[in-house]
């Protein structure tokens, strides 16, 4: 009788504590909370929760989300460790996709070497993964050097609607609208400032022409009037401005070309960001 009474006394307290108390830090609740943080985009806190429970719960999705979190946080080294941990899982092709995207983000300039070394063939089996890999390889060539790839090779992996964009990137890479530093220098040697005008720096070009012209005139005028000292000062100054003008024209063509390169890479970056680096869309939050 006492025993039954004891049970009856204990039971309600159990129910009571169930309704009022929550195990905030249980494995299941950590997972729920991590999923919530993940969907809110708080990847740092989410990955901390996932890491805490992954040893207890073996789950492909959790491993994959950890990889996604590290990728979003730009912690590619951690992401890589996680790829090797789960190469046998069902999601392995998704892991591979992320692995290649991360490799590309880490160094888009040497990514194409995977392709050239033919390392990838042993790991990639699925078509969609291979397609992402080829797209990234094309982009890597555009970032660095075409290495005598044909336009067809570069454009082929892309969707039909993107092919014209990639094709124009290719044309640009093959023949960028550079200005010749040598030509700019020669032009400015013949007519001061004309090299700068050729590059598009009209204000600087006209200024260079006026300054050298004025100093040359002053030197000539003073020599004619037999003011030799003054004449030599103006000649010296004029010579420096003339030299600086040739030098500056060469440099301004170089800077122009640097701008062209910058804008091209900016275009590539923008394209990749719009495509989110060809990352598949994962629907974990709906």
């Amino acid at each position, binding site marked *: 009788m006492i*025993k039954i009474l*004891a*049970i009856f006394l*204990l*039971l309600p*307290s*159990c129910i009571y*504590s*169930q309704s*009022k*108390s*929550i*195990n*905030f*830090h*249980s494995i299941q*609740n950590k997972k*729920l*909370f991590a999923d*919530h*943080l993940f969907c809110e985009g*708080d990847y740092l*806190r989410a990955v*901390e929760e996932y890491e805490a429970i992954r040893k207890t719960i073996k789950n492909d999705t959790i491993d994959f989300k950890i990889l996604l979190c590290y990728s979003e946080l730009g912690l590619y080294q951690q992401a890589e460790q996680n790829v090797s941990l789960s190469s046998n899982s069902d999601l392995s092709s998704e892991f591979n996709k992320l692995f290649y995207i991360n490799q590309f983000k880490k160094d888009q300039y040497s990514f194409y070497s995977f392709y050239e070394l033919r390392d990838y063939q042993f790991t990639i089996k699925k078509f969609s993964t291979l397609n992402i890999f080829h797209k990234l390889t094309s982009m890597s060539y555009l970032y660095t050097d075409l290495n005598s790839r044909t336009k067809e090779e570069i454009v082929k992996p892309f969707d039909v609607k993107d092919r014209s964009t990639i094709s124009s990137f290719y044309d640009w890479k093959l023949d960028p609208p550079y200005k010749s530093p040598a030509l700019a220098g020669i032009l400015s040697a013949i007519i001061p400032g004309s090299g700068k005008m050729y590059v598009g720096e009209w204000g600087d070009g006209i200024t260079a022409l006026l300054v050298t012209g004025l100093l040359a005139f002053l030197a000539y005028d003073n020599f004619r009037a037999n003011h030799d000292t003054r004449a030599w000062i103006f000649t010296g100054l004029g010579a420096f401005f003339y030299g600086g003008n040739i030098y500056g024209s060469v440099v301004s063509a170089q800077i122009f070309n640097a701008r062209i390169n910058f804008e091209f890479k900016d275009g590539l970056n923008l394209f990749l960001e719009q495509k989110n680096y060809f990352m598949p869309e994962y629907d974990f939050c709906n």
Partner: protein
Amino acid sequence: MISVTKICFNIILLAGIACNLRAQISSEEQFNYAKNFFDKEKYFDAVTEFKRLLFFDETDQYNFAANKFIGLSYKQGGKFSDAVYHFTLAEKNTGTAHELFETRIEIIKVNIIRRSTGRAFILLDSLQSDETFINKIDEINYWRGWAFIFADDWESASTSFQSIAPDHELKVFADSINNNFYNETFAKVLSIFIPGAGQFYTGEYVSGLISLSWNVLWGYLTIKAFVDDRVFDGFMIGSLLWWRFYTGNLQNAEKFALEKNLEITNDALYYLKNSYTGPKP
């Protein structure tokens, strides 16, 4: 038979005890757990734990307090937009007028410290025009004073503190700072009449002397050239040299005054941050 009952009983008893003893904790305990991180200045972890509380607590009773502490944590981390966002969430969940006032002041304080004082003034005005807070006028004026300090308007700050008490500590402080400032226009006007005088006024004697010397030299040479009828030389020296050093002298007089004033302001702000003991933003 008996033994089976006994075993059953023991299992149920153990389950019952475990039910109570397991890591089940109440929301209050989780709140205190999070608050403990906050008190230890571990603000990142405090935010995590308060967020955990908000996620699991279905009673919504912590929507105000947890969001307030998340806001305070973000503020300590210098993440002001996140702070304002969570203070706003807290504001939506306030139960009392006091809590509402407290949260709004927190939002104002963030706006003061990140120097978006225009926003702070708008919020202070709306608090002042709200009849609920008619008895909080001193506190409103106190924070208005701080907003003026961060807007670098010490005179208005003094007025605000004065309306709390004529000899308010910060009123006296703001007045003393305001008296130390150099007058930029005065410095410039001095240098218009006597090159270098504005620099002397701000205590930059060497620079003042150099400026004065150059102006005397080029002024003398310019005038001499005109007197000697060398009009071209006069124009060249006057326009290329004298004028250059004369305008440079004016720029310097103003620059030194501004620079000295910035130093005075920063010394005052440093004092307020590190030595003033009253409420701070």
